[in-house]
């Protein structure tokens, strides 16, 4: 990964095929994510959003195509190099995926312990700061089983940010959160992006989040097995030529308009 060359995109996917054991879910994907962009991958349930994410971060191996981070091929890199590249990537899993036997502070400190030459007090200080950045200061001694779902997600985010990644992946950050908590998480993503300049890739179908913070979206489709839209969601919802895209982003408002009755005004 060579973030020194600013002309290269953060992520460059070309000709990527995604799928499990011989079954292809997505075919020949091509897209780029610019630096510092908040990039959403959207689509209906079961269209392969999470599968694509797993392919991007190397949990699943693509059957064809390449994933490049800052111009360097990730999925074909040698094991050691891939480990190096993974240090610059943070992932927030759906449920936070905190290690249940460690306290929140230890959860955030573990990546620092593995990969940095910092001494224990510096590690603790930095981990505390990451926790306070996500609004969890004072919870460092708590265990994952003692906190709520929203807090787990934020703690997961603090852990994802531990090594100051250049790219952060979010898997359904608002799933299972109430609208306010989910909105705060959105705001947190924007704040951190502005402050740290990282690139964010978000897998989600939460329309409120998409319109609030997405710079650009790609929409996947099950039948097409590929991308059916790529652009600013605020433009796509009005101007996309594809009905599926307009319907998805407009929550099917067009189709529903006829069936819904007008509320009588009080």
């Amino acid at each position, binding site marked *: 990964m*060579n*973030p*020194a*060359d*600013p002309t290269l995109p953060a992520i460059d996917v070309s000709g990527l095929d995604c799928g499990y054991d011989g079954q292809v879910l997505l075919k020949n994907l091509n897209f780029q994510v610019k630096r510092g962009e908040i990039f959403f991958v959207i689509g209906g349930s079961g269209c392969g959003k999470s599968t694509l994410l797993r392919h991007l971060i190397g949990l699943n191996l693509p059957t064809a195509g390449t994933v490049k981070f800052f111009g360097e091929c990730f999925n074909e890199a040698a094991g050691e190099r891939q480990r190096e590249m993974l*240090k610059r990537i943070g992932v927030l899993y759906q449920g936070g995926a905190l290690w*249940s*036997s460690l306290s929140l502070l230890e959860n955030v400190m573990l990546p*620092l312990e593995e*990969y*940095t*030459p*910092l001494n224990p007090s*510096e590690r603790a*200080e*930095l981990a*505390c*700061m990451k926790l*306070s*950045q996500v609004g969890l*200061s*004072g919870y*460092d*001694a708590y265990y994952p*089983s003692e906190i709520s779902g929203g807090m787990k997600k934020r703690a997961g985010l603090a852990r994802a940010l531990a*090594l*100051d990644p*250049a790219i952060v992946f979010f898997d359904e950050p608002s799933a299972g959160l109430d609208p306010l908590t989910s909105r705060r998480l959105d705001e947190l993503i924007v704040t951190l992006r502005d*402050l*740290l*300049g*990282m690139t964010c890739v978000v897998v989600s179908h939460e329309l409120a989040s998409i319109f609030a913070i997405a710079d650009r979206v790609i929409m996947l489709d099950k039948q097409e097995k590929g991308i059916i839209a790529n652009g600013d969601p605020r433009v796509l919802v009005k101007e996309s030529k594809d009905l599926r895209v307009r319907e998805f982003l407009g929550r099917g408002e067009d189709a529903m308009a006829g069936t819904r009755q007008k509320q009588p005004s009080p």
Partner: protein
Amino acid sequence: MPEPTTIASETRVQLHAQGEWLLVELQGTWRITEHRPSWASVLADAEPARVKIVWGQLADWDSALLLFVFEVRQWCRVKGVYCDLSDLPDALQKLLRQLVVVNETRMVTDRSRDFLTMVGLAAQDVWGKTKEIATFVGECVISAAGLLKKPHKFRWRDCLDEMQQCGAMALPIVSLISLLVGLIMAYQSAVLMRQFGADIYVADAVGLVMVREMGAMMTAIILAGRTGAAFAATLGNMKAGEEIDALQTLGIRPVDFLVMPRLVALGLMMPLLALYANGLGILGGMAVSKGLLNIPPAAYWVETLTAIDLSDIFTGLIKASAFGVLVGLAGCHRGLRADRSSAGVGRAATSAVVMGLLLIIVSDAVFAVMFNILGW
């Protein structure tokens, strides 16, 4: 992190003295995963009166730089030296303020408890667990009575499945262990009996001990490790996945649905396995007698038949059945009371095995006293 420029170089700090000012120029790439210079080593013996941090040609930076600037700032505060940070970009200033706030407000929370509280909590825990177990056993009894009245409500399919799992699938390990136990007992008693010329009584010893004690006991121990742990893990996982809650909200008692088929399966399979273990243990004794003591198998068999009668076999089987139910109870109880986490499931499986073994040994002692009084 922030806007990268085209310069990529190593982490560097350059000092320039300018009157009473010491200019600290930051250069290169600062990565948290690499080594960074410490302020003490950069400063060496210099004793500046004022320090200014200068934003040099930085390629890329992250928390490593932040920690360095923080170190400088802290040093200046301790030494009472003026520190000028105005040259730093806004993002870094903001992060630095966050770090300072965390550093100054951080309290090390001590969540440990004192000795007396721990003892009190442990005592409460023991009392609570005792009540829990009593309740669970009571529920099982009520459930069993209910099923006797309405046998068509019993989940025979699940029960047969479990029988297959805990009975037939356990045959290989039960065979191996009981054969070896028979062998070992024959060896040990052969050494003793030979001194008295009473070689043939090896058959009596192996036969009696196997049928009355070891057959049931070894099978129960194997199943406590194999099946008890499996029950606890399965039910614990179901609890974590809210499957148990789903049963309850449908008005189905988890004990009827999940526990009874398992208890019945173990209670029926355990005596069968114990009987099988008895046979193999006697076979092991026979092999040793033939090899070591030159007793023909036929003579061994006849001697065994004179030593054990039907009541011995029955006491063994009664015990086996009781052990089966106890192992099942321990497994199901721990599973249903497991914490809703991956670690909770692990603990449930562990304590199911421990509790199963404990119940086996304690009940075996009770049976020993009881059979003695009854003269069986």
